[in-house]
Each structure stands twice: as structure tokens, then as C-alpha cells.
């Protein structure tokens, strides 16, 4: 049972267009163990985000489905929290209030006011945002907003954490900081994570497995790469590691030799 925590079973999706249905995904099969960190990588437009949105329940698969802990899920819900690429914080609420909105919704029956406050503060501390809890999104940097977005998702205590290019819009240094924070948190909480990225280093550094997708239309899973590097991983030490570089090479070879960017043709 443990090794079939989340299952994507023959997931295909078609979008109606003026020229008839457009098949974006073709029979995606993927099984995640509990506590596993999986990255989805592929060229732009290959349907990575579509996969994530189907798991989140924001899109409905045309055929196939998502099974979480032996139950099919079709609607969005806080058990599959999403960290959006552009943070998606409500700009009229402070960092604290943004997390509070989620906590109040998820734990309305289980926690009293004091417990909720403690839980909100705990999650903001986890992402190192306790010093700026009462600031609004417009008053904090992009990296800080993304931290709050992660805190909001973690505060839902999700079964699966879905991250859609969470660090894509950040500069390299901020991104490295946040990747380190994410690794710490994941080690602490043993969360099950699906992350979309197109950064090869990020994928290798963070993941237990990297799922490489072919170019669309009708994108499929091309290859799955097991990253067998010991944790905790240190980005400086690992960059000199032969295996690490071998994994990087594998992913790069898939992306730039086997699946050339469609825009290059």
C-alpha cells in the first residue's frame, strides 16, 4: 500500500478547439511513494502544467484518473495543495492573513483560535518569514512572496504538495536559498511532492526521480530517471560529484538530443 500513495492512471486530456479536439496528454502513468519528491521536466508547452493541474483537480482528465490513497480524486481540494508559479497571494491580505485564510478553511473544526494562530506562525517560521508576517505581498520581495506561498500550501497539511515552477521567476541566488529551504522542509515533514521545473540543476538536486516528458501534442512520459544521491544534499559538494554530473548529463541529453525544443525546428 505504501508504495502506491498517489497514482496517475492512463491520464489523457483533450481540449476542444476550433479545429477539433486537441490532445495534450496521452496516457500518462505514474506512481508516487509517500514522501517521494518527483520533478516533471520538459520543454515549454509539453503539458507539464496540465499534468499538475489534473492532479490538483483544476482540470479534469478526459480519460484515466488520479488515485490518492486508494480513492479517486476529481475535484480540487486542500489535500493537494498547489504552490503557483507567480505565488498567487491575495494582495489585499498580509502574509499572515494569506496563510490564515487557508488554515481557517482546512482546520475550522479541528483547531481553536489559539491553535490556529500557533500553526500559522509555525508554518511561516518554517519558511523563514516570521520576521515579515504582517506585511502585504506588495511590501516584500519575490522570493519572500514565494516563501509565503509555500507556507500557505504547507499549512494545509496536504497529502501531496504540487509545485508549478515555484522558483522560475526568481533570481539565481534567491532560488538557491529557497531550494535549500525546501530540501530542509521536505526532510522534516517527509512530504510527497510533484514539482514542475525546467531547470536541470534544480531537478537533479531536489528530486528522488525525474520524469522527463516528450514534446506535445499528445505528450507522454519519455524517460524516468532515479536520482540515487544521498541526502542531505549540499549544492556545493554535489556539484563536484561524478554521479551528479552523470544525472545532469542524462537529463540534458534527453532534452537537447532526444527531444529537441519544438521551437528550434
Amino acid at each position, binding site marked *: 500500500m505504501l508504495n502506491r500513495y498517489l497514482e496517475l492512471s492512463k491520464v489523457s486530456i483533450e481540449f476542444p478547439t476550433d479545429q477539433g479536439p486537441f490532445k495534450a496528454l496521452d496516457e500518462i502513468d505514474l506512481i508516487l511513494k509517500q514522501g517521494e519528491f518527483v520533478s516533471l521536466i520538459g520543454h515549454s508547452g509539453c503539458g507539464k502544467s496540465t499534468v499538475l493541474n489534473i492532479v*490538483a*483537480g*483544476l482540470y479534469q482528465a478526459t480519460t484515466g484518473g488520479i488515485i490518492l490513497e486508494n480513492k479517486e480524486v476529481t*475535484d*480540487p*481540494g*486542500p489535500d*493537494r*495543495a*498547489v504552490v*503557483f508559479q*507567480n505565488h*498567487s497571494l*491575495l*494582495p*489585499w491580505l498580509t502574509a499572515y492573513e494569506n496563510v490564515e*485564510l*487557508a488554515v481557517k*478553511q*482546512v482546520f475550522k473544526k479541528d483547531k481553536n483560535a489559539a491553535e490556529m494562530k500557533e500553526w500559522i506562525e509555525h508554518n511561516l517560521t518554517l519558511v523563514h518569514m516570521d520576521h515579515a508576517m504582517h506585511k*502585504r505581498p*506588495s511590501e516584500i520581495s519575490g522570493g519572500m512572496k514565494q516563501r509565503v506561498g509555500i507556507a500557505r500550501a504547507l499549512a*494545509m497539511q496536504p497529502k501531496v504538495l504540487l509545485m508549478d515552477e515555484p522558483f522560475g521567476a526568481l533570481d539565481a541566488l534567491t532560488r538557491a536559498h529557497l531550494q535549500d529551504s525546501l530540501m530542509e522542509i521536505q526532510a522534516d515533514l517527509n512530504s510527497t511532492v510533484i514539482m514542475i521545473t525546467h531547470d536541470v540543476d534544480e531537478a537533479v538536486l531536489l528530486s528522488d526521480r525525474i520524469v522527463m516528458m516528450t514534446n506535445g501534442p499528445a505528450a507522454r512520459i519519455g524517460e524516468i530517471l532515479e536520482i540515487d544521491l544521498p541526502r542531505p544534499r549540499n549544492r556545493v559538494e554535489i556539484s563536484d560529484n561524478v554521479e551528479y554530473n552523470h544525472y545532469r548529463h542524462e537529463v540534458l541529453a534527453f532534452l537537447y538530443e532526444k527531444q529537441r525544443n519544438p521551437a528550434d525546428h
Partner: protein
Amino acid sequence: MKETTLKTLEKIGFTALIPLIKLLMWDEPKKQIVILSSRILLPAVAIALFLILWAGVSSQINTSLGQLPGPAQVWEQSTSLITEHQLEQEKKAAFYERQEARNAKKLAINPDAIVRVRTYTGAPTFIDQIFTSIITVIVGFLIASFIAIPLGIFCGLSEKMNNALNPIFQIFKPVSPLAWLPIVTMVVSAVYVTDDPMFAKSFVISAITVSLCCLWPTLLNTTVGVASVESDLINVSRVLRLHWFTHTIKIVVPSSIPMMFTGLRLSMGTGWMVLIATEMLAQNPGLGKFVWDEFQNGSSNSLGRIMVAVLVIGLIGFILDRLLMTAQRFVSWDKNVEIR
């Protein structure tokens, strides 16, 4: 003390006064003078030029009511309108004094005597008309907003609802108040029948006509604002499984507030213009009636008095817009956006 004064001024939207206050407190006086010269000096020069042009042109135009009044005559009329109001107030006070004295006397002779208390029925002055118009436009605007904002939210949330109702809105939107007026008059006369009316019939008619015309900008802008909530924020709400009511209050309304206020300010502007026209046509008390009465009166002072009314109408419209802008500043979450 200084800080609070400046903050209050900023909040209520009188930012133009800030450098003046700072200058008076001798805070970076040179910088303040530069700011003042561009913010106050330039408009002052423009106004002066306008007054000169007005004086020059008006002296060349002769109407059947005499020469078109220039700034000086208009100023004269404005003071005389205020004096008239004061005289009227004195008359009113004197009337009540006499009445009281008479009644007291009556009761002194016979404690059981039935005394009558009559209200003063002098003609409303210019100042009275101003207040009548302001109250009417605010009531009409509030009625319209109470209908338009919830309806706009529903239409923005439900595409089907919007598709169904939008053609109706689009047809009624361009209708002139003057076309509504006869219908509103007849309907109010037929429906609003009481022996002891809380509001004058004319007031109800004016307010409803204003509402009918200032419903649309708020309604359509709210709909657009609600329909264009960022899809990512809607996804956040879906992931959280927010109840539709929480969704509306926490996500939809705050995010559409800028558009809502654009609509409200357009509505207020429309409503104010509509009201003056309604009062002129229906002879309902207010500034519009004042203008019409002066026009019919046709004395040599009439044009000057009408011009005073025109300026006051403009000024009140401006103040009403400013008030809404201040309200917007209070409820708006995006403090970085300059509201203008």
C-alpha cells in the same frame, strides 16, 4: 501633531495642501516653494487667464436680459444670494418667535385652548436648493449602488446570468433621464400614495430618476471587475474549497474594488448631471429649478444668478467625486497605485 495633520490630509485626498502646511511649518521651505509653484501657482495663473478672457468676451455680448455677466457681476450675485438666504433665515426665526408668543398668550388666557403650530412656508433660497439637490443625488446614488453592486457581482460570477441580462442593460443604459421622467412621475404618483408622506413626491421622483440613470456605470463596471478576477486567485479558492460566499467576500469583492469605484464615480457624475436636468424639467425643488426659475424670471440679475448656480453645480460635482475618491483610498488595498 504635524505628522498626523499631514497624514490626515493625505488620507482624505487633499494632497495639494500638504506642501502649503509644510511651508508654514518651515519644513524644507525651498522644496515646498518649488512644489507649490507648480501645483498652486500654475492653476492660479490659468484661472486668472480664464477670468480675464471671460470678462473680455462677456462684455461684448448683449442679450435680451442685458449684458452677459462677467466675473465681477457673478461675484456680486453670489454675495446677494447669500444675503437673501440670511434674510430669509431671519424672517423664519421671527415667524416662529411670533407664533410662539401668540400661542403662549392664548394659553395664558385659557389653558385649554387649542394652539396651532404652523411651519414656515417661505420660498426656498439658493442655499436651500443646494442642500435639496445634494440630498437627492446622494439618496438616488445610494439606491442605485445598493442594486447595482450586488447585481454586478452576480452577473460577473455567472456568465449565464450576464449573457441573459446584458442586452437589457445595454438597451436601458443610453436612455436619457428626460425620457424616464414622465414614466417615473406617473408610476410614483400611482404607487406612492399615503396621507402622511415621509418624503415629498417630487423628491422621490427626482431620486428614482437619478437612480435609473446612475445604475448602469456601476453595474457594468462591477460585472467586468468581478469577471476579470485573476484565474490564479480563483484557483487558490478552488484548492481551498472556499464556500461561494467566502469566495465572494474574500477574493472577488476585494479584487474588483478598483473597477467598482470607477463605476461608482462615473455613476455619481452621471447622477449629478441627470438630477439638474430632472429638476429643471419636472420643476422639482433643487438647483435645476433654481436655474429654470431664474431663466423664466428674466430680470437683469438672472443671468448672473444662473452663472453662480453653474459654478456651484460644478464645484459640488467636483467635491462629490473627491469624496468617492477618498472612500476609494480607504478601502483600496493597493496603496501603490495613484488614484486619480
